[in-house]
């Protein structure tokens, strides 16, 4: 479904701030894969996601999604086959527009936008039904501005928008990192529900080792712009945090030192 081959990305080339974020990344996801992506700060996991989404151009290598080479396709055109949720709950939704308007924008992702009315009454019924799945009472607040919602509510709404028309690939970029633990757990559970229900191919970045182990069928660990570990299926089911730390140490020759990942 997703094929990243020999991708390189360096920021601020030729300056003192030059930083190589991705070094020779090769990654293949098969249809229905739910991959959790973990790594310390600056390991390149968010950069990888942004390269796949088209936010950054890659310096070298190619990215193919569902058989289409998207390496040169701009972000807004790739969006049609992608679903994205961001770390910052404010980023995924338009605050000054209504809940239903946000959903309508997402519903038209990848379709040609015309002079037809921006939202139909038939859609409203659909949105109501989908919002009730979130169990946040949003189904009765269709026309409320999204800016009135809490971070958790906004993130749940973004998740719904991202999965609304079954994306070929779902990209979750630490989408629970900015939420309080209780809300984070709820949003994560919701994500898992949507992913399993729609058997969506998913790449989820997380800082939290336990979550990375608990969810998905495959775990990838990145370090300094490279993929260090790639643990699949049965091997992943047996994995514990201690194992992961040990294997990280052996593979990188360093100790894993991200407090955020360990303490979470």
């Amino acid at each position: 479904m997703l094929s990243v081959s020999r991708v390189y990305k360096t920021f601020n080339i030729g300056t003192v701030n030059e930083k190589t974020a991705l070094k020779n990344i090769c990654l293949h996801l098969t249809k229905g894969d739910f991959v959790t992506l973990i790594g310390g700060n600056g390991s390149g996991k968010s950069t990888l996601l942004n390269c796949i989404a088209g936010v950054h151009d890659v310096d070298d290598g190619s990215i193919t999604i569902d058989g289409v080479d998207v390496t040169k396709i701009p972000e807004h055109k790739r969006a049609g086959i992608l679903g994205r949720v961001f770390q910052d709950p404010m980023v995924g939704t338009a605050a000054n527009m209504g809940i239903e308007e946000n959903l309508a924008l997402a519903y038209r992702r990848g379709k040609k936008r015309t002079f037809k009315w921006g939202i139909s009454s038939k859609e409203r019924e659909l949105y109501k039904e989908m919002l009730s799945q979130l169990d946040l009472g949003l189904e009765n607040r269709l026309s409320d501005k999204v800016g009135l919602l809490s971070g958790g509510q906004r993130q749940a709404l973004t998740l719904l928008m991202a999965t609304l028309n079954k994306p070929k690939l779902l990209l979750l970029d630490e989408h629970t990192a900015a939420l309080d633990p209780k809300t984070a757990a709820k949003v994560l559970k919701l994500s898992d529900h949507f992913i399993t229900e729609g058997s969506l191919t998913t790449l989820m970045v997380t800082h939290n080792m336990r979550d990375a182990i608990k969810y998905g069928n495959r775990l990838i660990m990145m370090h300094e712009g490279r993929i260090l570990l790639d643990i699949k299926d049965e091997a992943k089911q047996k994995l514990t945090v201690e194992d992961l730390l040990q294997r990280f140490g052996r593979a990188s020759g360093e100790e894993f030192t991200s407090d955020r990942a360990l303490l979470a």
Partner: protein
Amino acid sequence: MLQILLGALMLGLLWAVMTIGIYITYRILGIADLTVEGSIAMGAAIAASCIYSGVNPYLATLLALLGGMAAGLCTGLLHTRLKIPALLSGILTMIALYSINLRILGKANVSLLRMDTVYTNFMKMSFTNNAVFTKLGVTHLIPVIILGMIIVFGIITILYWFFGTEIGCSIRATGDNPQMSRAQGINTNNMIIIGLVISNGLVAVSGALIAQQQSFADIQMGTGSIVIGLASVIIGEVLFSKRSFFIRLVSLVLGAITYRVIIALVLKMGMPANDLKLFTAITVAVALSLPEFGSYLRPITKSIKGGASGAIRKQSL
């Protein structure tokens, strides 16, 4: 007095067209677009020189619309394709338009006295010439007010429809959250361009209508127009409700009229006309800083309400 108020109403309606244009860039797209200073003069220049050379006034106004749209397109391309900051893109187009407007006009100003304008047909209508209006001395105002109302109402209706369509929603989303918009498959660059094109088209129409009303076009008439537009937008938002989009659009018109009424009254009270732009600038500065003032005032009102204990608690912190 009635004459003054009706005069303000008339001017307010013509400037409301520009105010709506500025609202699109300033509030919907979140860009302070200085192109308008050039495109309002451009609209006036195109309309005046066309009418002067015998073109039908309605066609001349339409050409002004197209000219303004081209100016907006220019700013849009500078900003989105060449990645020049929006403010600077607007300034560049504005400066370029000064020369272009001089070329269109051929000289610094063109008079339209005794020429047919868009208002002429309305002046010929018998009801505007009736005894009551003549007696009040407002005969020349009524046709402009009527046509102004028709145009403003038409524009509001069209824009209300447009910003409800899929494309219109995409423009609103682009202004609200560009990152999210791109993630939802919206070509944000194109949406910014469309917004600037519509906005400057409206501004140029406003310029064309003003030139025909005052019977001349002047190369300098754009100076300070962005500030007048912003003042009108803010007055409209402060004084009138900002609930639904339709009411917002109507409040812009009311804001533009209120601004003209205020100006007419301060002039009547004896303020020198030369100080007008200073007065407008101060009004806008105060209006824009109201939220900031609010946050200064809140602790004071709180400590007044909370009495001495509130003040002491604050000191100990």
